[in-house]
Structures are given as structure tokens and as C-alpha cells.
């Protein structure tokens, strides 16, 4: 069926990809249709942009977690790491007055460094990822408060910083579709990550590790090094998320972030990535993140009482994953 597809894609984006992706999209489309019918306000350009904007941060975090989950791990620290990276950007730019690119780089490197530590704890000390990243989640949460002096750091002295997420380069070119930069960054991160997963050795080992780590080790591959690499890359992506949220709020909020990890993981799994590792796609994760955003937005647009929003979201998460399972079984 997919004999015509480039062989290179087959493992990363899987053979059954084309069809599966279509069906995964269908869940998203179903939601969109339901909400469009239910409320005339849903299908406005403004609202679509609002949904995309709302997806940016969670989408980036979810992509970061996707990498770790494909190796068969999990990352509970993405939420607080995001905040930590935002705080680092704040310290660099506002406290130390460094130029903007350095602040951004600092945040991304801080993310990578934290990923490096998590990865090392997982790979070298053999601490299960769940625990290693749970510990990191707490550590980073505390450190964000310590470093920021338990108060938000504002980026008022760095003009243009909030354009990173809120400005619209696209809008300057095509005024009709002012897609915010934050959303474009999400897509860029997605493309880059998909490329790494599909075309590079790091990507290959990401899948291999999740598939059968012992076999990779027996094949003479330096499993630890690659695993640490995946966590570091994932951390760097979280760093991008940190920059995005800081830019969006024009401040680094040290108390924010906990709880974001579960939403990110939910997006990943709704997107068809297996929690047992070895399989997953960036596109799926994007769709998963969109499903969550559309759901939240739609329920709010419909003014569903908040307590019921939670109930509906929980139900849809289960149903979405169940639908994905049914789909796979049929294939």
C-alpha cells in the first residue's frame, strides 16, 4: 500500500501512517464540526487564531514529551522546567540586562541542561523516568522560586520580547491571516522534531530504545549517551516553550507550570503515541494538542459550567484514546 512512500519515513512515521493520520484528524474535525454547529462564535478567524495561540505552549511541551515517551520513558518535569527556563530568560534579560538573543539561548540551554540531568539520572543511575522527572519537577519548581526571588520577572526593559509569541510575521505579509509568531514557532519546532525523528541517528535510536533497549545495547550502541541526548533535546524544546510563555505573558511567573505536564502527556497519547515506547509521531501529538485546545475553547465558548468542562474533558480524553485503539485494531 505504501510501497511508493520513501523508505526513510517508514519507521519514524510508520507504514500505516497516511491512513492513520487521516483518521486521527477525523476526531479533531468531528469536534470542530460539533462546536461550529453549536455556536456561531466558534468558527471566527479570531477564535481559530485564539485556539492556535492557546495550543502553542502546550503543543511545544507535548512535542518535547513525545521524544521521551517514544524512548519508553515519561517526563513529568516539562511544566516546571518550562517555568524554570522562563525564569532564566528573565534573569538574563531583566536582572542582568543581556541582549534578547542571549536570553532566549539561555532559556533553551537551561532546558537542555535540565534534560541532560534527567537523562543522566535515568540512563546512568537507572532511576525510572517517572521518578527521575518527578524529582526534577519538584527541584525545578523550587529553583524557579529561589532564582526569581519568588516574584514574577517582567520583560518591560526588553522591548520586542513579547513579539516572539504575540507578534505576527505572517500577518505583516498576508494581513488577512495574522497567525501569531508563537504558532509559527510551534510549527517550526514540530517540523524540526519530525525531521530529527525521521532522518537522523538520534531519531532512529529514539525509536530503537523504546522498542527494545536491551537489543540496542547488545548491538554495541552506547545506549546511555543517546538516551541522555534525547532527554537533552527534549529539554531544549521545553526551553523554547519557556520562552514562548514568558513572551506571551511578558513575564516569567515562577509559580506557574505544575499540571502542564499531564496536559502535554494527554496530547501525546491522544495523538497515538504509545506510552510503552517505540512508536509515535510529531504530527499525531500536534493533533492531540489541538484536540485539547479545541475542546477547552469550545466548552468555554458554549459557557459550559466549569465543573462540567472538567468532566467532559476527562471523558473525551478517554474516548479519543479508545477510538485510536479501535482504529489500530482494525488496521
Amino acid at each position: 500500500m505504501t510501497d511508493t512512500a520513501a523508505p526513510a519515513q517508514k519507521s519514524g512515521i510508520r507504514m500505516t501512517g497516511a491512513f492513520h493520520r487521516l483518521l486521527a484528524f477525523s476526531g479533531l474535525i468531528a469536534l470542530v464540526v460539533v462546536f461550529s454547529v453549536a455556536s456561531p462564535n466558534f468558527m471566527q478567524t479570531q477564535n481559530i487564531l485564539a485556539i492556535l495561540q492557546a495550543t502553542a505552549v502546550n503543543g511545544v511541551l507535548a512535542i518535547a514529551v513525545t521524544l521521551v515517551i517514544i524512548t519508553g520513558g515519561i517526563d513529568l518535569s516539562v511544566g516546571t522546567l518550562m517555568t524554570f527556563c522562563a525564569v532564566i530568560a528573565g534573569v538574563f534579560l531583566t536582572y542582568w540586562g543581556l541582549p534578547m538573543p542571549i536570553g532566549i539561548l539561555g532559556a533553551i540551554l537551561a532546558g537542555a541542561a535540565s534534560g541532560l540531568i534527567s537523562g543522566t539520572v535515568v540512563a546512568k543511575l537507572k532511576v525510572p523516568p517517572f521518578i527521575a522527572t518527578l524529582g526534577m519537577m519538584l527541584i525545578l519548581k523550587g529553583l524557579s522560586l529561589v532564582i526569581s526571588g519568588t516574584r514574577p520577572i517582567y520583560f518591560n526593559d526588553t522591548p520586542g520580547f513579547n513579539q516572539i509569541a504575540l507578534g505576527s510575521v505572517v500577518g505583516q505579509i498576508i494581513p488577512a491571516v495574522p497567525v501569531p509568531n508563537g504558532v509559527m514557532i510551534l510549527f517550526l519546532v514540530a517540523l524540526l522534531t519530525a525531521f530529527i525523528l525521521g532522518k537522523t541517528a538520534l531519531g532512529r535510536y529514539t525509536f530503537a530504545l523504546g522498542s527494545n533497549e536491551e537489543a540496542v545495547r547488545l548491538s554495541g550502541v552506547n545506549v546511555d549517551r543517546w538516551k541522555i541526548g534525547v532527554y537533552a533535546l527534549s529539554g531544549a524544546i521545553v526551553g523554547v516553550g519557556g520562552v514562548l510563555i514568558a513572551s506571551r505573558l511578558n513575564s516569567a511567573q515562577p509559580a506557574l507550570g505544575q499540571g502542564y505536564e499531564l496536559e502535554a502527556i494527554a496530547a501525546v497519547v491522544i495523538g497515538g503515541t504509545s506510552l510503552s515506547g517505540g512508536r509515535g509521531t510529531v504530527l499525531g501529538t500536534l493533533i492531540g494538542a489541538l484536540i485539547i485546545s479545541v475542546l477547552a475553547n469550545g466548552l468555554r465558548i458554549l459557557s459550559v459550567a466549569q465543573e462540567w468542562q472538567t468532566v467532559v474533558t476527562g471523558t473525551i480524553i478517554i474516548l479519543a484514546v479508545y477510538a485510536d485503539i479501535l482504529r489500530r485494531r482494525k488496521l
Partner: protein
Amino acid sequence: QDQVDIALISKGFQHQFWQAVKAGADQAAADLGVSVTFEGPESESQVDRQMDMLAAALSREPDAIGFAALDSQAALPLLQQANDAGIPIIAFDSGVDSDIPLATATTDNVAAAALAADVMAEKIGGEGKVAVVGHDQTSRTGIDRVEGFVNRMKEAYPNIEVVSIQYGGGDQLQSTEITKSILLANPDLDGIFGSNEGSAIGVANGKQELGSDVVVIGFDSGAAQKGMIESGVMAGAITQNPVGIGYQTVQAAVAALNGEDLPKVIDTGFYYYDATNMDDPEIAAVLYD
């Protein structure tokens, strides 16, 4: 001889409001030469965590305790225990339904939110649609402020309709997204009230992102909110006096230890502030960054 040791158990920790209370307490500690610890659970729903904190504080045998009860009933057994041990207790932020606290340094949240409603009504001309982005659906402050606002609207302004009440947990990002949804679902909305600092900033962010001209009334202060009021994104906000709450709590504790008589209620007050009065010394004193 050791310093006088006062344990403050608050309702929260990371949020700016509580950090301002802590700053006031620390200031008083420095002024009065006592030592103060400050601790609070992660969210205002974690009543049992606050109990554990109070229990640990009691084990430390402090000279006095300041306590902002998340749930006044739940705390009673431990407060009784403290009372039995002869440790004076000062309540702050919200009262405790009990005689044990020697004094309570507090703000009337219901009245404060009602003031927000009055200002809102005035700004939108006494009629139209408004919405509320609350910070917590179940905590005392969360309920008081939302109800204070909504009830005042119902009673005093029959032509104003509260079309939507949603909760963002005080999380700026979530409050931003909620605000955008509310605005998109109600294009003819006239005003939004954000019930604490995070909610208010989120509301203002959402307004800015959509380029809406809805009237925003906030609550509490902080550098961001002050900046938004200066720039006109936010019309104004209600502030309590958190620094004062912290300061007076410690002051009252020291007074109690010195055997002085205390008033049962220390009203720390609340104020409406906007671009016009922000720099008044009286107002500037209660605003915090």
C-alpha cells in the same frame, strides 16, 4: 536568650499577594527584633496540607502563631491544642469561627468585590453585560469575591447581566485563554472582573490579544497590574493591604506576648485604585510590586 519565634501559616505561598504579606511580616520582624517563618500550601484547596504545616509549627514550640485558615472549622482541633499549650494565635486574612484567636487582621472580601462591582457599573454606564474570571471556585476568598461582585450587581444594577463566570485557578495563561473565549463568545460584552492578581492580568492579556475595548477591573496589585492600569488596559483594581496584613499580624503577636490588650478585629482595609490615584501616598503605601 533566643529570639522570639513566630510561625505564620498562610493560605498560599507562591502568589504575589502572599509574598506581599510575607514581606510585611518580615518587615515587622526586622522592626520588632523577632524571627518569623512563613509557610503556606500550594493551592487554596489543600486544607489538609495546611493542617500538617500547622501541626509541624506547633511541634516547633513557637512563641506565637499567625494563621490564615483555609477552612476555619478544620483547623479547630489544632488551634485548641495551641491554645492549651499557651501559644497566642493571631488570625489573618480570613477569620476563624472561634474565640481562640486573640485578634484577626483581615479584609472584607465581599465588600471589596462589591466595590469592584460599583466601579464596573459606573464605567459601563449602569447597563450591559459583564463577566467574571475567578481564581478559585471553592476557596473562601474565591467564593467571597465572586459572590460579592455578582450579588452587588444583582441587587444594585438590574440592567447589568453577569453572562459568564469561569475560573482560571489564578493561572495567568489559563485566565488569558478563558478571557479570550468569553470575549469571542460574547462580542457585546462590556466589562470583565478578574478576582485576583493572576486572573486580572490574564483578563487584561486576553483583552489585549484580541484588541478588545472591554472594561477590565482587577484585584490586588503587583508590578504588572500597576503597569496595565497606567497604560489604560485595565481601568482600575481593588487592592487590599497585604503588606499591612503581614505587618500587623506580627505586631499583634508581639503585643500579645507582651501582655497587651488587642482589638478583636484589625481591619486592614481595601481600596480602589486607578491611574488617577495610584501615586497618592495613601494608596501607594498599600500597593506592592
